[in-house]
């Protein structure tokens, strides 16, 4: 599904054939599929309206108007029948039910990065709240929206919460002024708290491993600390220095390939393909010899939210690899082998990395850097895939299909679907 201005376009994932077309009242800011893929919600933040469309019955429609309360965020609940709207200024979260037309309110939600998180199995939702200048967390049961637990957190300014994939542990971390990670069990008991250091800027990003065994914490000091789920103590620190000296790591460097032009095939006027191939630069991966020194960007000292530290973390689906990006060295992507707790690969790109995502099924990583190429890495090697087409297609973000066969590449105005062939075994 994609939205264009005020129209919602639904296409088939394998053939990109147009299936449905819906029109909304105003420009759509956000769309989301329901968990059973039967409904799509379109949030129009400016108007404070959420419109829901059904795929099975195109005639069915639903509109939720927040009125003067305004709308800042909207999302589905895991059962696909409730919509949680966050009003402006984070006054409250309204839970609209599509089944019973009833409304519930969650007061005092916290305005933070990740305030509402659902467990993987969709049973519980944790909401970060702030009452009387104190942070607290409420856990609700999703089936009937009853409050299960409510407890205070020992944080100064709760910045985010995240469930572990097994749904039993909730990680909460503090603002970047304080390095503090708290781990709560499902019933609200504090299991452990982790604090690496006191004064310098703290946690930047957090990721759980898919087996809930590890919690990776990326911080502003360019290090990732991994905690284990048995003792909640640090098992290792992964550093991101600017020079790589270890002989065991492979460094793939993206190198520009000068385009080869067949003299004989030049024709006048030049065909479109030829023109595009001339102007778009090809590139390929080269293996650089260790020691390698990476491009280091010195952060501006007195600006807030400096581009320092590990800003992006992701575990692979089979729990074997961890991909990290150090914002100091924006062109490089670091891939760590979790089984050995060592750096295994570094990908050095020509442009700063915009986003990356692991394949949900295999240990395959797709990276985009804002150019018209998508980069794929797997333990077998890495490859540069050029998006064919005219003009520039600057990939800003990408998203894998849940089966791992295709992925969507998004640029500012367009998107394309990249299909990956399965190996014939």
């Amino acid at each position, binding site marked *: 599904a994609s939205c264009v201005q005020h129209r919602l376009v639904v296409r088939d994932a394998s053939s990109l054939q147009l299936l449905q077309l819906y029109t909304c009242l105003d420009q759509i800011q956000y769309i989301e599929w329901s968990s059973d893929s039967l409904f799509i919600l379109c949030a129009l933040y400016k108007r404070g309206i959420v419109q829901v469309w*059904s795929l099975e019955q195109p*005639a069915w429609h639903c*509109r939720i108007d927040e009125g003067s309360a305004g709308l800042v965020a909207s999302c589905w609940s895991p059962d696909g029948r409730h919509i949680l709207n966050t009003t402006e200024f984070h*006054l409250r979260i309204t839970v609209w039910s599509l089944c019973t037309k009833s409304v519930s309110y969650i007061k005092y939600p916290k305005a933070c990065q990740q305030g509402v998180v659902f467990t993987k199995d969709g049973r519980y939702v944790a909401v970060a709240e702030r009452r009387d200048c104190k942070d607290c967390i409420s856990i609700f049961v999703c089936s009937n929206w009853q409050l299960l637990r409510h407890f205070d957190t020992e944080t100064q300014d709760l910045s985010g919460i995240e469930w572990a994939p097994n749904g039993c542990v909730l990680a909460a971390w503090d603002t970047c002024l304080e390095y503090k990670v708290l781990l709560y*069990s*499902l*019933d609200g008991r504090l299991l452990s708290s982790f604090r690496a250091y006191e004064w310098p800027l703290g946690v930047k990003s957090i990721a759980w491993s898919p087996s809930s065994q590890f919690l990776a914490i990326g911080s502003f000091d360019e290090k990732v600390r991994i905690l284990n789920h048995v003792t909640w103590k640090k098992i290792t620190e992964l550093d991101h220095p600017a020079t790589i000296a270890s002989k065991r790591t492979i460094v793939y460097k993206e190198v520009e390939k000068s385009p080869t032009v067949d003299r004989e095939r030049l024709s006048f006027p030049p065909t479109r393909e030829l023109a595009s191939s001339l102007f778009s630069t090809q590139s390929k991966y080269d293996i650089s010899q260790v020691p390698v020194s990476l491009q280091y960007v010195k952060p501006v000292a007195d600006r807030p939210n400096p581009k320092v530290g590990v800003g992006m973390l992701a575990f692979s689906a089979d729990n074997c690899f961890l991909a990290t990006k150090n914002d100091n060295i924006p062109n490089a992507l670091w891939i760590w082998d979790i089984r050995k707790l060592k750096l295994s690969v570094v990908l050095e790109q020509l442009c700063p990395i915009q986003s990356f995502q692991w394949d949900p099924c295999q240990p395959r990583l797709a990276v985009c850097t804002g150019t018209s190429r998508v980069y794929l890495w797997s333990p077998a090697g890495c490859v540069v895939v050029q998006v064919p087409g005219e003009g520039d297609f600057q990939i800003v973000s990408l998203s894998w299909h849940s089966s791992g066969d295709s992925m969507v590449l998004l640029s500012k105005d367009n998107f394309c679907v990249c299909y990956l062939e399965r190996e014939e075994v």
Partner: protein
Amino acid sequence: MGDWKTITVPMLSSDSKNILSYTSERKRSPTSMNSQVLHLSLPSYKNMHSFYSAFCTEENIEQRVSYIDRELTTLGFPSIYAESKGKELNLVSIINCINELLVLQHKNLRAQEEVEMQHMKLGSDMDHLQNCYAKLKEQLELSKREIVGLQERDRQLQSKNRNLHQLLKNEKDEVQKLQNIISSRATQYNHDMKRKEREYNKLKERLHQLVMNKKDKKIAMEILNCVGRADGKRGAWRTDKTEARNEEEMYKVLLSDYEQRQKQLLLENAELKKVLQQMKKDIISLLPPQKQKPKEKSEDGLVLSDQEEDIGELNKENMWELSCETVREQLTNSIRKQWRMLKNHVEKLDNQVSRGHSGALNEKDVISREDHELETEKLELEIQQCKEMIKTQQQLLQQQLTCDDDTSLFLQDCYLLEERERLQEEWRLFREQRKNFEKERKSFTEAAIRLGLERKAFEEDRGAWLKHQFLTMTADYKSENVTTPSSEPDIRFVKSASLQRKPPSVLSAPVSAELCQTSQYIAQNSVASEKPAADNMPNLWVESDDKEETE
């Protein structure tokens, strides 16, 4: 010498001049002796002469003699006068006295020499010691200066150290101050933030009230028709029961998670315990038997016995089922002890190796690693070979056992056929070879016969040639000995043949012509038989050689 000097002076006051010269001479001689150490500074013949004439002259001879006599007697020598007869000199005693005086003189000279030697030695020792003393003094000076320098440096370094310490303290104080500043600022910011947040909350509340109060019609949900729940159930009321159920469910989830984790941990524990047990067994097997030396290691022996008891106990029980703490501790402690013993053992072995091959016992005990590895490789190879053999044998056995009667007969027939064919082949080969051998034999016999004939011919030729030679050489002699018996026509024939051939040992041309003539002459007459010729040959040959030489 000096004493004598003093004695002699007053005694011989009468001959003062002579004495003076004498004493001066005397004086001079010791000084000269002092200066010239080694050689006896006997005055020269002339000096001696004058010296002696100065002492005794024709006029005062009797006085001098009496004086000498007195001197000698005072010195303990017998008198030089003859007994009872005055003024008659006893020559013998004089000579004895002289001899003794000479001996005494020699002794004194030697003593003087020795003394002077010693004096020189002492002088050189003294020089040496003085030099040493001077050097040591210099060294002492130097070291004193060095010490002063070092002390100076030491002082400087200490002062530097103190400065650095001070700096470090200052830095630390600064850091502490900065930290305090940061914390105070942080609390200030927190306080400010809280204040601002409270204000913000108030605003939010106000806004909320306003929003709620307005009762906007707009805040509504317009829906075409209600959608069924995803799981098909109807919505439930919120009651206490549902709350309780929620709690229950939540606890169930947690419990299941914990149970899963505990199972995993139990499995891990079991694995690790097994590994530890194995390790313990391995370590025990690696350690050498220490029962032979109970005296040396009394403590370790005790520990060992304890260990053995423990091992026995622990092995009896099923370790992996018990998980209480004491048992766990026992296991880990026992492993640690064993490990320590193994470490000690390995260290001892290392020491032995490093000390070298000292003692036969060590050599015997320590097997070199390479030998060990070689042996293990050999053993492994043997094992593999044996295994393969066993496998093949088993296969053969199975074949034999499992095949039917028909097949066995058939197989036997096959074997017989094979054998028969093989035998036929061999027969054929054998016959061929025999034929070949026959042929070869025939050819060999022919060759032998030919060879025999050739040899005969050769021998005959040789004999003829020799005879011819003999005849030609001994032509002159033959003129004398004409009556030589037996003229064999064959030989003659051969001779003529040889003559025609003209052996190469014929010398010069005129000689050969002569020889030819003589040989012809000989040929006509009877020729000596071979035997006597042969007998005479060597002599004749010698003679002929001589003849040849002379010619």
